[in-house]
């Protein structure tokens, strides 16, 4: 058996169609594949590599999220102990909001093994497509919802705001998979310090099952506690207004606003 090495790959949000070619090759050539994906995703993986096994049972064996994630890492490292090429596959982008993916890379490296993370299509990539947004236009802030609530950040209302893992909001003991309505209300109140109560957010869920459509449910901040959040829900808040040009910064370089050449994106943003 060849020396142990680890590839951490992402299968994208829509099983099958979102697999990149390089990921397909890595999976096909792997000695072992361990995956955190849904049923259809696992079926796709098994067609590429019949040895693919699911790590979903880590959630059942362990009482809380911490123990489940540790169990995933333990299983991936145990597979590496047997030598050969191990592929750890996570749905979406494996490096985006996935604790065990980064942790298994750290632990593999600490053992002196080769380990590499490959990109995949994330939920945010799907959001940009399904809501037809370009993050270059206003900029984009992206946070884990509960972390955003607990550790206040400077909110820039001229940029978009994306909050992930809404279903874990209020999961104090890290062992539930359902948002706590009291926390949703509290989060909305925090947001309403910067945005008007009638500011309309979108509860977004990319379609993962063929023939399904994405969920794009508009909801005002004042009524945020009335919507239901699933584990796939991401909350999107559009910017309030366009950012302001800094005459001061231009002046540092001896320029004024009129010196800036025309840019279609700026006209569109300021309309």
């Amino acid at each position: 058996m060849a020396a142990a090495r680890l590839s951490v790959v992402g299968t994208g949000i829509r099983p099958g169609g979102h697999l990149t070619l390089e990921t397909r090759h890595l999976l096909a050539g792997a000695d072992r594949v361990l995956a955190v994906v849904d049923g259809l995703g696992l079926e796709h993986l098994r067609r590429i590599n019949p040895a693919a096994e699911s790590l979903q049972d880590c959630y059942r064996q362990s009482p809380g999220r911490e123990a489940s994630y540790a169990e995933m890492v333990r299983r991936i490292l145990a597979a590496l102990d047997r030598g050969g090429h191990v592929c750890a596959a996570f749905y979406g982008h494996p490096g985006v909001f996935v604790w065990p993916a980064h942790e298994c890379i750290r632990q593999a490296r600490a053992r002196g093994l080769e380990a590499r993370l490959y990109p995949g299509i994330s939920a945010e990539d799907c959001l940009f497509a399904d809501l037809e947004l370009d993050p270059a236009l206003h900029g984009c802030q992206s946070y884990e919802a509960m972390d955003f609530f607990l550790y206040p950040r400077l909110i820039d209302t001229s940029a978009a705001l994306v909050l992930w893992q809404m279903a874990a909001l209020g999961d104090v003991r890290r062992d539930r998979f359902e948002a706590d309505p009291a926390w949703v209300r509290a989060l909305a109140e925090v947001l309403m310090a910067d945005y008007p109560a009638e500011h309309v957010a979108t509860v977004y869920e990319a379609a993962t099952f063929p023939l399904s459509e994405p969920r794009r449910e508009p909801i005002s901040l004042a009524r945020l506690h009335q919507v239901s959040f699933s584990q796939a829900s991401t909350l999107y808040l559009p910017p309030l207004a366009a950012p302001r040009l800094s005459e001061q910064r231009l002046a540092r370089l001896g320029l004024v606003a009129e010196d800036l050449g025309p840019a279609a994106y700026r006209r569109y943003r300021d309309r």
Partner: protein
Amino acid sequence: MSENTKKMLLALSEDPNLVSEYKQDPKTVMDRFGVPAEHQELIGQGDKEGLQKAAGLDDEMCRLIIF
């Protein structure tokens, strides 16, 4: 559970052209894949959970939170 139903779902999740064709004429696509009549009925009713079960792809316990 039907292997043919599963095959069609796998193909649909890979190929947007097939999705377009399906939206125009679902019956022809389902017949081509040999999807059994009872599954065609589930699909017609938009019963996603029923269809997942029928294809042997039960996601009831699937978790998506990994951070």
